């Protein structure tokens, strides 16, 4: 049974909201972190909570040491901790990805390293959607080390890294926003506002359990699994994923609005995009913005400094390909997803060149032609995204 139709999840979600309404001492993020920990323990069991708390303490200690050593002359110590932290994080992420890609990975790992607690760690990674925790850790390190933002206490940090309402699949919340939740006075919860939040949550449930499930049952039967065997399947799959993921994101956002905990918007009518580049600013927006601020912008800035502004557009192909390779490998550790990233990066670079060319020659069609061209562009975006999905679908939804 999916987590979001488990009555216990909703009882706990409402309990956390009611507890947050009580004027207890401590900041909002601390109180949320505490109630979140209690809710996770009841929902997932004390073993998962204990491992999660251990992981949070490891991250917190490493970042505390790094920020402490940042202004000290001890360069070797700082580099060592920085390297160690990155290696541990990438190692854990890789374990999780190998486990997702290969069903016998746990047994293979047990044979190679019988001492390694795979039977505890691997289910923990899946239960808590470690891919999202991984990107949150990068965002956290980026804020604390490079942007000199203060590190919050471990309980509040747990509320940022593993929030109950973003447990299933994101969105990727921003550390700076989470920290600022304490500074902002939360909006007064009037009956109208509560009604709007309920509307957001019920729309999310409607997307998933009526529209997405309706599509699945219609095309694949009541107990059938989504798969992409033929080209046409990838069109259905794309629409299904939209209602599934956008529905989930709406539920998470609605609960986040109730709690006053920043929960980013994840979808903004992606099928209205007139280019693939625009599509990625409207689909899974929180991951797109994370990639933009953590990979694309820093790499592009470094490149422009080296090659000059004149070659900025041409050189953008490098950060685009790197960013989308990360997105591909973030989904699954496989050659197919890696090539998906390379191809997507190149396609977006081509779109950039075409766009620059059209601006240069001041091509502006009349209004009627523009509407027709935009409709064709939307068709092109849908076809391209579905086509790319066809090649990677079997990695995520094996037949």
């Amino acid at each position: 049974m999916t987590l979001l139709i488990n009555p216990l999840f909703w009882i706990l979600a409402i309990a956390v909201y009611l507890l947050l309404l009580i004027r207890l001492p401590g900041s909002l993020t601390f109180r949320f972190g505490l109630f979140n920990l209690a809710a996770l323990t009841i929902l997932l069991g004390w073993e998962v909570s204990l491992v999660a708390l251990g992981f949070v303490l490891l991250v917190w200690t490493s970042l505390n040491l790094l920020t402490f050593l940042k202004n000290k002359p001890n360069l070797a110590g700082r580099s060592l901790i920085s390297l160690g932290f990155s290696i541990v994080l990438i190692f854990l992420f890789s374990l999780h990805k190998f486990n997702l890609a290969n069903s016998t990975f746990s047994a293979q790992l047990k044979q190679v390293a019988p001492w390694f607690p795979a039977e505890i760690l691997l289910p923990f990674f899946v239960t808590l959607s470690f891919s999202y925790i991984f990107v949150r850790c990068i965002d956290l390190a980026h804020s604390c080390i490079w942007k000199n933002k203060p590190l919050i206490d471990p309980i509040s940090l747990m509320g940022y890294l593993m929030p109950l309402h973003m447990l299933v699949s994101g969105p990727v919340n921003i550390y700076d926003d989470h920290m600022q939740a304490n500074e902002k006075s939360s909006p007064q919860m009037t009956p109208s506002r509560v009604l709007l939040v309920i509307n957001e949550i019920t729309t999310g449930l409607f997307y998933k359990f009526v529209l997405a499930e309706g599509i699945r049952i219609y095309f694949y039967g009541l107990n059938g699994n989504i798969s992409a065997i033929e080209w046409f399947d990838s069109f259905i799959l794309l629409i299904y994923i939209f209602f599934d993921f956008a529905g989930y994101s709406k539920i998470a956002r609605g609960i986040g609005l109730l709690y006053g905990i920043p929960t980013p918007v994840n979808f903004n009518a992606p099928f209205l995009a007139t280019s693939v580049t625009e599509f990625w600013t409207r689909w899974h927006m929180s991951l797109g913005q994370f990639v933009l601020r953590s990979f694309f912008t820093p790499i592009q800035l470094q490149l422009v400094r080296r090659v000059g502004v004149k070659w900025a557009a041409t050189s953008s192909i490098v950060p685009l390909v790197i960013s989308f390779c990360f997105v591909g490998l973030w989904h699954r550790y496989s050659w197919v997803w890696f090539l998906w990233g390379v191809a997507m990066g190149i396609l977006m670079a081509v779109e950039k060149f075409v766009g620059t060319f059209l601006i240069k020659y001041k091509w502006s069609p009349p209004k009627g032609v523009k509407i027709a061209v935009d409709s064709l562009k939307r068709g092109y975006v849908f076809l391209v995204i579905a086509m790319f999905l066809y090649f990677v679908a079997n990695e995520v939804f094996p037949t």
Partner: protein
Amino acid sequence: MNENQLLPTLKNKIHLTFWNTTALLIWILFKLTLLASMMHKGAAEFIYAGF
């Protein structure tokens, strides 16, 4: 007017008018009714669950 167009105008308001509240309640009830008829324990897990 579809819901996506309706939401931004409503989001900024703290107090809804009587007609807005009624329309929103009907829309929520409509969704919940369909939801109740579609809900079954065999529902597929979220695509990105456990990612």
